[in-house]
């Protein structure tokens, strides 16, 4: 006898059926999947264009079945600006790490937001330089040990970690700014909602949108995936509070 099963969970169409290069327990895999799900849900895969700059983010172009750029370190918002301005019909997003977005590319980040570019940024904050092997990032917490802050980051030597969501939320051009996390199912569901809102903000032409995602990097934090997920909750969230920092004004 044949049974009919209803499929209630499947791979998003925009996500290619390939194994990723991410380490076990890395948040990148989840974040990439959320982007793919939202692209499917909003039915924009045929007009979505992603920009993946240098960092563990860069190979996203291998996983998404959409048009993509690989960009120089930090320059994704400028590349996305060039693309979106000449083809306003496209849905353009950048997918950037914290070294990329908050350090080398902070000028491009701030100005894309200030101009109100109708692009979306998915910003992976893992408090470290992942790809180059765990050096200090602008988002590294005070006291956090990295390969270039071996006794732990001190504010005397290295200043203070940057809160990008709060910073960008001060800009008039930014329409939707949120911080979420992908360390637990509860947070992942909220993260997906925020990514969707960011894309919707762009599609409605309301301005710049950015979702900061607190994301575990077990490898460079020298932790197990479970320890890393806990560290996001216990160490990162107190300094990087979750929530929406700016929502489009036209929205109730």
């Amino acid at each position: 006898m044949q049974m009919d099963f209803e499929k209630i969970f499947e791979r998003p169409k925009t996500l290619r059926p390939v194994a990723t290069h991410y380490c076990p327990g890395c948040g990148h895999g989840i974040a990439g999947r959320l982007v793919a799900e939202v692209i499917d849900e909003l039915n924009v895969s045929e007009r979505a264009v992603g920009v993946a700059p240098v960092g563990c983010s860069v190979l996203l172009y291998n996983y998404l079945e959409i048009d993509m750029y690989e960009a120089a370190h930090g320059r994704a918002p400028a590349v996305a600006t060039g693309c979106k301005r000449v083809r306003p019909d496209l849905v353009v997003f950048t997918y950037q790490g914290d070294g990329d977005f908050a350090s080398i590319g902070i000028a491009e980040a701030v100005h894309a937001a200030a101009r109100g570019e109708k692009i979306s940024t998915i910003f992976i904050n893992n408090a470290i330089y992942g790809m180059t092997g765990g050096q200090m990032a602008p988002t590294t917490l005070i006291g956090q040990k990295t390969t270039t802050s071996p006794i732990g980051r001190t504010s005397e030597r290295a200043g203070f970690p940057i809160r990008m969501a709060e910073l960008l939320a001060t800009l008039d051009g930014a329409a939707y700014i949120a911080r979420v996390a992908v360390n637990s199912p509860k947070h992942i569901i909220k993260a997906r909602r925020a990514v969707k809102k960011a894309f919707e903000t762009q599609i409605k032409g309301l301005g710049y949108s950015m979702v900061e995602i607190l994301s575990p990097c077990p490898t460079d934090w020298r932790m197990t995936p479970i320890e890393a997920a806990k560290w996001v909750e216990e160490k990162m969230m107190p300094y990087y509070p979750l929530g929406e920092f700016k929502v489009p004004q036209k929205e109730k």
Partner: protein
Amino acid sequence: MEKKFMTGNEAIAEAAIQAGCQHFFGYPITPQSEIPEYMSKRLPEIGGIYLQAESEVAAINMLFGAAGAGVRVMTSSSSPGISLMQEGISYIAGAQLPCVIVNIMRGGPGLGGIQPSQSDYFQATKGGGHGDYHMLVLAPHTVQEAVSLTMEAFDLADTYRNPVMILGDGYMGQMMEPVEFYKTSSPNLPPKDWALTGAKGRSANLVKSLYLDPEALEKHNLEINRKIQKMRKDEVRVENYQTDDAEVIIAAYGTVARICKTAIKVLRDKGIKAGMIRPITVFPFPYNDFEKLADKMRKFLVVEMSLGQMIEDVKLGLCGKAQISFYGRTGGMVPSYDEIVTETEKLVKEVG
């Protein structure tokens, strides 16, 4: 077609528009600001995009984005700004994107000055950014030539999927001349089926310069190199000016070549048969034309607004067969025709 009286900078901007470039990203810097100013007025009128970037770093990456989306796009700057663009130019060459970059050179190094110079020759012709690539570099010597080369630059960029540079200087940018805009017929250009326009009815496209596997990167670099070899074979442009009966040859490009034409007239009035070889493409460089001249000519004077950059290519072209002397002014000083006359006379006497 009626002639218009325009500065070099304005003429370059209008030529780009007439060549179908509707998109411009840039950052202000003297002595080229008339280009972005012109664009900011004209492009919105024709439904195009003018955007003032936060820096030259951002501007060139906006070109990367726009060119990757398949449109004709241009930026312009002057020496310090062009230095900032080198990273992006390397990525554009690596990703094989077509675009046009204008450098209205001023004196360096560092902040240098705002007066005309030709001291970015090495940067323009030898790479500038990192990696195995070359831009195609066109060096006009009149405003009219700046117009025609700018228009052609877009076709060349599309043909080779490579950045093309218009190499001018502050003198050319500010100079006013009557110009005509001819409609150029575009050659059969390859379709931009690689462009990012949304993956509708086709598989996804990818614009990238990253090849982590060394074998793949070597293959990619060889592909870029094949284009460069084709440029060397097919795109060399040079003007031989009164060289047929010449006893001494001046080598110069851009604004300096124009001054040399006046010097040559004076020299000929004085009974000295001088001629000039003028590279129009400084990359690819006309080595063969120099070699041919070296077979019948022994005296060469290289004149530049630098302390000697193009002279290295001239030496390669002449293969040690001729005597070469050099006259250069730098820092924004422009050589006058009588200085060039004096230098040429010296050379003629020296070798006897």
